[in-house]
């Protein structure tokens, strides 16, 4: 056949210019304030962990793609993003090989075994985290006290993450935890999750760039608040205030960065809303009844397993109307 003189393709003949690397690196850009907060409150050890997980995730992806003979797309930012997120969830005190193992397993088990980017049923970073949590539970639960780099004083009243104080000492002990500290992040905990402020800055960027639509984050936080409020309303002496619940622990990072991960979260609007509600509800339930202190990680993993079901709830297609006689 004669080669045509011109390029021939189907319409459309223009493209918006959006690409996977762009999407991933913009999400990483949104993570910068979170990473900064991690360094600010926990210093170089936190950065070291984040660096190890990021590098090992990219290395694992590149290795796997080389071994199975697929085009190597390890630089598209998706592995790096998962690695950075995983690093933000780990205690800065861990020995170097635990984060490295986490980065490897997150990408290999959480993503590549299912077929690569976007095919993973569960959040990649959380799969890595869960494997580490199950394997090295005792060291995973130990978090250092904060040590702000400048301006702020270290928070000497808190030795444990606030959410653990709630579990072990009850709501009365929360008197020591000020909301200002919770908001800025001057509390012990996983480095990426402590600062509500940093996550909100990054999350606002994600929403502004429409990388994440507002449905999942808003309904995640809202439903967590409402469920916590139900308990608080039953017995304020036994259960913490809902404001504390949404500001302490992983909820903010989970709502903006973990739950809306492409691939493992639903794509339709009703699906996303229900997904957010499920995440929030499960978080509060696990926090109150579960054997784990924090609930966000397993709530998101459980909600991920609902995604295929939620994706079946779809809006009515336009033009599907009964013919009017």
């Amino acid at each position, binding site marked *: 056949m004669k080669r045509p003189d*011109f390029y021939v393709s189907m319409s459309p003949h223009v493209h918006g210019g959006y690409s996977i690397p762009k999407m991933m690196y913009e999400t990483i850009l949104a993570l910068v304030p979170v990473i900064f907060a991690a360094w600010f409150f926990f210093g170089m050890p936190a950065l070291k962990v984040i660096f190890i997980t990021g590098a090992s995730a990219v290395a694992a992806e590149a290795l796997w793609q080389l071994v199975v003979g697929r085009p190597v797309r390890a630089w598209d930012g998706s592995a790096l993003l998962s690695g950075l997120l995983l690093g933000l969830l780990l205690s800065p005190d861990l020995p170097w090989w635990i984060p490295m193992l986490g980065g490897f397993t997150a990408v290999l088990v959480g993503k590549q075994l299912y077929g690569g980017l976007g095919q993973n049923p569960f959040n990649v970073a959380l799969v890595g985290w869960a494997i580490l949590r199950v394997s090295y539970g005792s060291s995973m639960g130990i978090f250092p006290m904060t040590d702000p780099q400048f301006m702020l004083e270290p928070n000497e009243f808190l030795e444990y993450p606030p959410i653990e104080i709630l579990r072990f000492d009850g709501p009365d002990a929360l008197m020591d935890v000020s909301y200002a500290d919770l908001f800025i992040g001057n509390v012990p905990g996983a480095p990426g999750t402590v600062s509500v402020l940093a996550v909100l800055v990054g999350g606002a960027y994600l929403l502004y760039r429409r990388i994440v639509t507002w449905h999942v984050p808003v309904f995640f936080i809202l439903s967590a608040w409402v469920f916590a409020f139900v308990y608080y309303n039953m017995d304020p002496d036994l259960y913490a205030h809902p404001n504390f619940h949404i500001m302490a622990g992983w909820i903010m990072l989970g709502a903006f960065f973990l739950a809306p991960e*492409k691939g493992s979260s639903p794509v339709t609007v009703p699906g996303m809303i229900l997904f957010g509600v499920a995440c929030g509800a499960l978080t509060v339930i696990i926090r109150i009844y579960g054997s784990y202190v924090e609930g966000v990680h397993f709530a998101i993993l459980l909600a991920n397993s609902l995604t295929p079901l939620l994706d079946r709830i779809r809006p009515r297609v336009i033009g599907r109307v009964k013919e009017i006689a």
Partner: protein
Amino acid sequence: MKVRGLRVSNSFPVSSGAVDAVPAPERVVLPLATHWGELSPSVQVGEAVKWRQCIARGEDLRLPPLHASVSGTVEEIKSGTGPRGRECSCVVIRSDNRDESEEVQGLDENASPREILDRLVTGGIREADAGRWPLALRLASPDLVARIHPSPREALTRPVETLVVNAMDRQPWVSVRQTITEKRASELLESLPYLQKVSGAKRTVLAASTRQFLPEALERGLRELKAEVVRCPDKYPAALEPLLVQRVTGRQVPQPLGDARKVNAVVVDVTAALRVLDLMKKGCPPTETLVDVVFPETGLTQIVRVREGMLVEDLVNHLQPKLGNIRKAVLGGPFLGYAQPHLRVPLTMETDSLLLQAAKEVSRYDYQPCINCGNCVHACPMRLLPNELSKYCEFNAFEEAERSHLFHCIECGICAYVCPSRRPMVQLMRFGKQEIEAMRVES
């Protein structure tokens, strides 16, 4: 009803609105294919034809016949490229440069709807929007339809309640209709009574986008004709028929084969309206077409008036000083057009724009698997799940695709535009549709 869509960047220069009349070419190529069937030529090779003479008509007389766009001799009848890139036979006329016209006579102002309809049927108006029916059938009120169609479909027996005159361009980067509405408002107003008469419409609507400028005289004239202006969102697929009708009437056009008559509406764009006016007032069947030529590399946007059947090659030669090295030629605009393998294709009434791209503008579909990001789901104006549909079509799961309403897809191309994996969504959808249609024929 909210219309979903895209605001495509407005940074691109819109044409100044000046229309460059291109001299008639030496040779015109007139394809015999229409959206509804092929015409057969009524002239012989070597025969002398006059300008505006009817040279081909369909076996079904309701198909719009074809008129010579220059006077001269029929050089040959050969196979060529039709309006949508498909092969069809074409009549080639060599011009004698005299533009000797067939005698034409206008209708007087009090013409009855029957006379108007007869003119429409023989007038040979074709449009950029491939409607479900040729213009004459689509516009005709039920009692008139009965005259020209012995057993019309149910939709055509419905009275026309809403007549929508579409002043919006179909897609970004094209400004033909916008220009016409601004510059030729008085003629547009003159054409409306004919359309109202023949359709018997109770409500006449001029659809314009929210940012579109409408001359004061036009708005005043519309009020006198008891027509209203409906402003539609300035988003890309809002001007396509199903969405436009939904916006104006509040009723969804049943899909597939979206036929606005099923919800008692008919859409006529302003270009067609002016053709109707020419046909009625002067008796001239349309032989010219306005084409918006866009060459993004040099920022050229120019509306040209060309004779129907002029080859793109001749037009490019005419514009050459303003153009560069062309690597892709698209007839019909950036989102809905058809890329052409060469430039020896004719410009027809179905074409309202010609997009010429240099090498660096050509977007490539070197695609990756779907990553389920859901961008297409949020952008789809028909509220389909393009991500699923494209995967079904890619992996030959056509039954599932059909069950997920593949045929509701209007091929607007937004899903491909927003796709970060650069998947050729429209191609996959069309492939699926073709395969399903082939299976239906077999069974």
